[in-house]
C-alpha cells in the first residue's frame, strides 16, 4: 500500500524555501535532495549514498492465511474478555467474602490479595485481549503519512507579522510609550501583595535564629528517659551503657515535638580516663558520664548509634561519625561541628541534672549562628 508514491525521492518534490535561505524540513537527509535543505551545519552531504530500497514487501500472518488460525485467535480474544468479566465479579465477591476482621491481622492480607487478584484479572483480560486482537486479527498493513515542515508557510508567517503590526498600529502600544511603560510598571507591581501575603506562613513576632539558639534545658532540669520521662540516677548509668534522654517535663509541653527536636540528648558513661576534656569543660561530665546533643550537626537526623568498643557515635542518615572521647568531634562524614555538650551534674538525691542550657545552638548550621 502507498508504496511508491511516498518513497523519499517523491516526497522531496515539495519544498517551501523562503528568503533565499532554504528552509524545508530536514530534506538533506535524502542525499538526492541535499541542495534544497536548511543548513546541515557540520553534516557531510553525500552524493554517493546507497539508495533506499523502499518498504519491504508485506508478509502475511498465519491468521491471514489460515482461517482456522483466525478462528482460534478470535476465540482467544473473546475468552480473555469473558475472563475479565469473571475477574470483576470475583473482585466484588472477594470484597464481601474477605472482610477485615479487627481481631485477625491476617484478614487484611486476604482482603488485599483476593481483591487485588480479581482486579488484576479484570484489567489483564481487557488488556491482553485487546492487544491480541490488534496483533492477530486487525488489518496489519502499515500506512504512510507525509510529514510537513513544522515551520508555518511563508504566507501564514507574513500574515502573523502583519497582524501584530496591525495590532500595534491600532492600539498604538509602540507609539504611546507613556501608556506602555506605565502598564508594564503596573504589571510588575501587582504580584507584590501576593508575595508579601506568604509572610503569613510563619508566625509573627518570633525570630527563628533566636528560637534555634535555645532549648528546654535549664539549670537543675533533670535528665529523664525517652520516652517514659522517668528521671535517672548517676548510679544507674554503668560504664559502656548509653541512654536516650529528654528534659524533665517535655512530655507535658504543648509543643513536645518541636522541643524534642532540639533537646534530645544521648547519655553515655565511659572510663573517665578515656575522656580528653578541654579547658573549661572539666566539670561538665560526672565521673565519666557525658551528655551530648543527639541532633546531628549536619542536617539534623538523630545521632542514635553508639559503638561501645570505639566510643564512636554514628548518624544513620549520612554516616557522620563523632568521637565521644574527644568531645564528639567529627571524625568522618559530611558534618563539620562537634555535637554540642550538655553540662551535667547530680542533685542531692543522686539524679542527673543539667547545669544549664547548651552553650551553643544545637543541630544543623544556619546563617546567623557563628
Amino acid at each position, binding site marked *: 500500500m502507498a508504496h511508491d508514491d511516498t518513497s523519499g525521492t517523491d516526497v522531496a518534490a515539495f519544498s517551501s524555501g523562503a528568503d533565499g535561505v532554504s528552509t524545508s524540513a530536514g530534506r538533506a537527509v535524502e542525499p538526492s535532495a541535499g541542495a534544497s535543505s536548511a543548513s546541515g551545519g557540520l553534516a557531510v552531504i553525500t552524493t554517493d549514498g546507497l539508495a533506499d530500497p523502499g518498504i519491504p514487501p508485506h508478509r502475511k500472518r498465519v491468521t491471514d492465511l489460515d482461517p482456522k488460525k483466525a478462528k482460534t485467535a478470535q476465540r482467544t480474544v473473546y475468552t480473555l474478555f469473558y475472563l475479565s468479566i469473571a475477574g470483576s465479579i470475583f473482585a466484588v465477591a472477594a470484597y464481601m467474602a474477605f472482610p477485615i476482621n479487627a481481631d485477625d491481622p491476617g484478614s487484611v492480607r486476604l482482603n488485599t490479595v483476593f481483591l487485588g487478584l480479581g482486579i488484576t484479572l479484570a*484489567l489483564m483480560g481487557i488488556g491482553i485481549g485487546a492487544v491480541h486482537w490488534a496483533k492477530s486479527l486487525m488489518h496489519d498493513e502499515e500506512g504512510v503519512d507525509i510529514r510537513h515542515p513544522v515551520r508555518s508557510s511563508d504566507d501564514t508567517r507574513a500574515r502573523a507579522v502583519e497582524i501584530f503590526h496591525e495590532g500595534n498600529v491600532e492600539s498604538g502600544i509602540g507609539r504611546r510609550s507613556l501608556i506602555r511603560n506605565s502598564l508594564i510598571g503596573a504589571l510588575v507591581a501587582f504580584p507584590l501583595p501576593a508575595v508579601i501575603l506568604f509572610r503569613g506562613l510563619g508566625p509573627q513576632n518570633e525570630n527563628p535564629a533566636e528560637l534555634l539558639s535555645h532549648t528546654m534545658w535549664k539549670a537543675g532540669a533533670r535528665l529523664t528517659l525517652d520516652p517514659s520521662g522517668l528521671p535517672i540516677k548517676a548510679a544507674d548509668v554503668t560504664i559502656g551503657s548509653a541512654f536516650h534522654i529528654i528534659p524533665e517535663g517535655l512530655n507535658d509541653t504543648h509543643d513536645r515535638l518541636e522541643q524534642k527536636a532540639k533537646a534530645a540528648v544521648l547519655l553515655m558513661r565511659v572510663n573517665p580516663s578515656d575522656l580528653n576534656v578541654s579547658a573549661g569543660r572539666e566539670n561538665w561530665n560526672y565521673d565519666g558520664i557525658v551528655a551530648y546533643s543527639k541532633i546531628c550537626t549536619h542536617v539534623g537526623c538523630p545521632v542514635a548509634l553508639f559503638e561501645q568498643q570505639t566510643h564512636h557515635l554514628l548518624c544513620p542518615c549520612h554516616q557522620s561519625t563523632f568521637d565521644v572521647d574527644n568531645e564528639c568531634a567529627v571524625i568522618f562524614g559530611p558534618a563539620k561541628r562537634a555535637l554540642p555538650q550538655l553540662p551535667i551534674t547530680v542533685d542531692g538525691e543522686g539524679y542527673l541534672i543539667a547545669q544549664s542550657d547548651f552553650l551553643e545552638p544545637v543541630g544543623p548550621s544556619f*546563617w546567623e549562628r557563628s
Partner: protein
Amino acid sequence: MTIEKTKADGLVDGTTDHPVGAPPRISNAPSARFTSAAANYIDERTSISAVVKEFGRKIFPDHWSFMLGEVALYSFVVIILTGTFLTFFFQASMAPVVYDGSFVPLKGVEMSSAMSSTLNISFEIRGGLLVRQIHHWAALLFIASIGLHMLRIYFTGAFRKPRELNWVIGFVLFILALAEGFTGYSLPDDLLSGNGLRIIDGMVKGVPFAGSWLSFLIFGGEFPGEEIVGRLYTLHILLLPAIIVALIALHLVFVVVHKHTQYAGPGKTNDNVIGYPVLPVYAAKAGGFFFIVFGIIALIASFFTINPIWNYGPYDPSPVSAGTQPDWYIGFADGALRLIPPHLESVIWGHTYSWNILIPITVLGLFILTVLIYPFIEGWVTGDKREHHILDRPRNAPTRTAIGAAGVTFYAALWSAASSDILATHFQLSIESVIHAIQAAVIIGPVIAYFVAKRVCLALQKKDREMALHGFESGRIVRLPGGEYIEVHQDVDEYERWKLVSFHEYKPLMIRPNAKGKITAPQRLRAGMSKWFFEDRIAPVTRTDLERQKSHH
C-alpha cells in the same frame, strides 16, 4: 493519500458527499441506525467529524522503546485514580490523636491524624491497603518509566530539531514527578517520612542569608510544627498534579504536531511516517496496553507490601533505625550529601557558610541544568538546522552516546552512595572505605564510561560497515580447488543493508576568520567542541565503496 485515508473521511463507512445534515448512507439495521443518528446529533453540535478526520487515521510508528512514555502516562492515570480514592479517607492534619485502631502494637500511641488515618486506610477499610499500595507502586513505576523514556529520547537523538522544547517540557515533568513523589512520601507523617523532612529542613537552614527564615516559613514555625503535612498535601494533590496534567497535555500536543520519530529502515524517510493508524490498530494496542500496565501494578500491589508505615511508627525527632533509606528516586540527592568530604563549613565575619550542603546542591543543580539544555548544546556544536525525524542508532552518534554513558554513571555513583551503609554492612567493609571508593567512582567512573562507550560505538560501527560491504559469515566452509579453505560470506539483503548505512556523518568545524578577518572566541570554542564530538568517526558505506568491493571479488 491512500485508499485507507479517503475511506476514513466519511462519518461511518460511507462517502463524504452526502447532503449537509443528512446522515451518511449506511445499513438499515436498528443498531446502525441508532449509531448514525447519535453521531449525527453530536456532530451537528460539535464538528467532531473534523477531529475524527484529522486524527482518526494518523499514523504512529511502532517500536517497543516508544512504549516507555506510554507507561509513564498510564501509570500517572493510575496514580490519579487511586490518589483520588485515598483523599476520601486521608486526613492531612498533624493534630495529635491517640491511635485506637485495630493494629494492636500501636494502640494507645500518640500520633498525628495523618498517620492515624493512613493506618485506618490500611487496616480498617476493605481494599484500602490495596489502593494505597497500587498508588505507591504506580508512583514508583511512573518515575522509573519517565527516567527510561528520557534515556530513550537521549540515546536516539530524538531531542534534535524540532523537538528541543519538548525535551525541556519532558525534563521539567521528570523534576515535578520527583517533587510529587517526595511530597506524597511525606504525607503519612511516619518516622521515615518525618526524617526525610528533617533532612530537607537541615538543608534549607544551610541556605545563606535566608535559611533559618525559609525553614521557619515552610514549617510554620520551628521544625516539625503542625503545618507541614497540610501544606504538602495542597502541593501533592492540587498544585503539582495540575501542573503535571497541563504539561503532559502540552507534551502530547507537541508529539502530534511534530509527528512521532521513527527508526531508520527501508522506506522510512525524513519526510514520512510509517506505522499503524490510530483507528483501529494503534487505539487497540495502546488502550489494551493501559489495562496491562494497570493490571501489572495491581498484581504487584496485591502481593508486595510497600511503605509499611506501621513498622516505622509515628514521627518523633529522637529515634531512628539504622539503614534508613529514602524512596529510591531521591537516592541520588541523598548520596550527594553523603559523599562530601568532612569539615566543609566555614564561619566568615560571623556568618556560617555550609559548604557541605551548598556544594552538593550546586553540583546537582549544574547536572540538572546541563541535561535540561543538552539539545541546545549539541545543536550549537553541529550547527545542524534541519529537522530530524529519523532516529539515530546510539552507535552512530558515538560522542553523544559516550556523554550519556558518563552521565548515567555519574548518576548511578551518586545513587549507590545513598546505600553506602547497607553496602558496608552487607559486604562487611568499613563505611569509610565504601565512601572513599564511591567518591572515586563519581569522578573516575564517568571518564571510564565515556571512553569505553565511545570505543564500543566505533567498534560496532566498524562491524556494521564490514557487514554492509562483505555480508556476514555464513558458517559454511568450502574447499577451494587450490586446497585452501574459506568461509563463505553471505551478502546482507538490500533492506538489511539500508539499516546499516542510512545515517549521517558529521565532520569537525574548520576555523575560518569572519568578515572582519578575526577568529572569535565562540568560534574557537565551537571548533574545539566539534572536534571533540566528531574527530573519531566512521563514514557510512557509499555506492562507490560497495561497487569497489563487488568488483574486487
